[in-house]
């Protein structure tokens, strides 16, 4: 069983600010973390590894500094980590990214053995599109299972997998054959904290780095900015919604409270709630 987990290093969205002049994310000084959903994919892979045995390869396309994200994955228990890093990959949209990621999965299969399952996150925190995972599945011609909230069974012998997909109007139970690409929801599991030997191992680990030159048959027209037809026509920061507020400041606490209650009763809210 060989599982590939795709991860992306993203700016920590809890600390993101928008540059008021350019309307783009201020990335400088914002801590970089592993995309939250990707960690759920990794955790699921590691659980399978713990229970039934599997080899887990983590891949990431990004700048050299993304090796920190890969090391974190190794500290949690991944067996190997590959950084796909080259200036020529920069500026990629979801189309170009899914191309490079699918090429990487193919190369991983060639060098380290056939791949049974690929995990991606539902979406990234910085891009939010959710397109890369399905794009990779299409290019690899794998079955794709998006928005997975539970993996019920992976049958290594029969090479089948059964999952729960979270849909808008319910849960879909699907069984399909491997190889398969799964995009993970956070309901899937709770990512583990690395053990101390894991952390020690990771801090000595050097991720494998592949550049464009390491790929035999990469179509250079399909990578980086050149391979990215997406045009961002406009970005803007939504106005914060205006909310009517009134300050009840004066008087004793009890008086303030009864004024507040009277004010609430005078709105349409109680009727709407059927009180």
């Amino acid at each position, binding site marked *: 069983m060989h599982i590939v987990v795709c991860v992306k290093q993203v700016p920590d969205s809890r600390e993101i600010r928008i540059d008021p002049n350019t309307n783009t994310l201020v990335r400088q000084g914002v*801590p970089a973390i592993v995309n939250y959903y990707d960690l759920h994919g990794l955790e699921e892979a590691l659980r399978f590894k713990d229970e039934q045995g599997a080899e887990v390869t983590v891949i990431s396309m990004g700048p050299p500094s993304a090796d920190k994200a890969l090391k974190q994955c190794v500290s949690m228990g991944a067996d190997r980590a590959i950084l796909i890093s080259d200036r020529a990959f920069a500026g990629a949209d979801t189309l170009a990214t899914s191309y490079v990621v699918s090429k990487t999965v193919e190369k991983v299969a060639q060098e380290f053995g056939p791949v049974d399952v690929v995990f991606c996150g539902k979406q990234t925190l910085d891009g939010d599109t959710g397109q890369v995972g399905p794009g990779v599945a299409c290019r690899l011609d794998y079955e794709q299972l998006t928005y997975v909230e539970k993996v019920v069974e992976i049958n290594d012998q029969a090479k089948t997998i059964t999952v729960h997909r979270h849909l808008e109007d319910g849960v879909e139970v699907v069984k399909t054959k491997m190889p398969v690409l799964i995009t993970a929801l956070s309901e899937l599991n709770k990512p583990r*904290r*690395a*053990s*101390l*030997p894991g*952390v*020690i191992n990771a*801090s*000595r680990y050097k991720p494998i780095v592949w550049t464009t030159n390491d790929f035999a048959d990469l179509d250079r027209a399909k990578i980086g900015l050149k391979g990215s037809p997406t045009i961002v026509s406009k970005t803007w920061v939504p106005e914060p919604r205006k909310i009517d507020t009134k300050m009840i400041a004066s008087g004793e606490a009890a008086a303030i409270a009864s004024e507040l209650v009277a004010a609430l009763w005078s709105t349409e809210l109680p009727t709407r709630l059927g009180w």
Partner: protein
Amino acid sequence: MATERFDAIIVGAGPAGSAAAYTMAKAGLKVVMIERGEFAGAKNIFGGVLYRKQLEDVIPEFWQEAPVERRVVEQRMWLLGKDSVVTMGHRNEAFKEPTNAWTGLRVKFDQWFASKAEQAGSLNIYETVATELIREGDRVVGVRTDREDGDLYANVVVVADGVNSLLGQQLGIHREWNPDQVSLAVKEVIALPKEKILDRFNLEGDEGVTTEFIGQLGGMMGLGFLYTNQETVSFGVGVMVNDLKRTKIRPYELIENVKQHPVLRKLLQGGESKEYAAHLIPEGGLHAVPPLSGNGWVVCGDAAQLVNFVHREGTNLAMTSGLYAAEAIIEAHARGDFGKQALSGYDRRVRESFIHKDLKKYQGLHGLLKEIDSNLFDKLPEALNSAAFQMLMIDGVSKAEKQKMAIKALREAAGGTANLIKLGLKGWRAMNG
């Protein structure tokens, strides 16, 4: 996994820990440094001024690469009155070459220092808390961490976990703080355009200035500071914890109030507050310094109370103690003996150094400060300010009369002549061992 053994475990990647880890790793020892922060310096704060001499002893010519802010060419001491200030200070081009001190920010500096240790061969581990010392008999043999399978073993544990030393408490060398032995500092980093900093502080290029002030701290014993960085200033106040308890003033209120002082307000105007943090500073002085080593352990930096609060020196004492501890451990390593006796070379080095001598010089001060009324920290500067005002105001009153008024004001502030003299004498003695 078979448990791996190290020559030394360092707990805490502050200046003390990194200096120790760097020195030992460079000497070829197998060391691991454990830090609870996401990276070194993530949550650490100081004023801060970094001194050349002691870091140079660890890493020669560090300034070529270390992330420091500005070269300190001027140090100011201000006595604040309500709407006024009496200033003292010293500026000297000679502070530049060789540079005496730099302003700095821990987030950047600690990260760099820890990375130097890592490059030298130290295994740095982050987001990991040392929770316990592991002992065999009367020896410390390792550290337990909060991670799964989290025990680590080594010949020596370097306790460099800072002012609230958890491991120091376990060694029985670190009691809970008394509120009169520790001060609480709150600090803000305030962004200002570089040109504004240069203009307002009369600076050029990478020159910087430090300002310390007393007075106007709500009747509390304490000190304020304002240091220039590249494109920010560090602004903060530190006051004794027992005074905070007594006055019930909240630290952030204090810092907001002080900011409104006309002199400070104009220096900070238009600045954007970027971060806010609070931290304890040990002020117990020499009397509070514990034994520095034992069977299988040494303790460095703030964890050992090695802070010279009179001169706001801490990082340098921390680094030097880390360096000395490392040297003693390297010797012990060569002999293969890590007992109390073998490690006592560390205690001896500290005793013979400026650390011990400086702390000894001020050993009386802690007693004195305990005795005197904190309100004096407001009253005396205020009296000096009104004296200065009187002397400089030309209003037809004779100079002799003015002098009398000034002396009277000072005397009253101190609570009578006898008190004023006593204070002066005691103060002198306290500052001179």
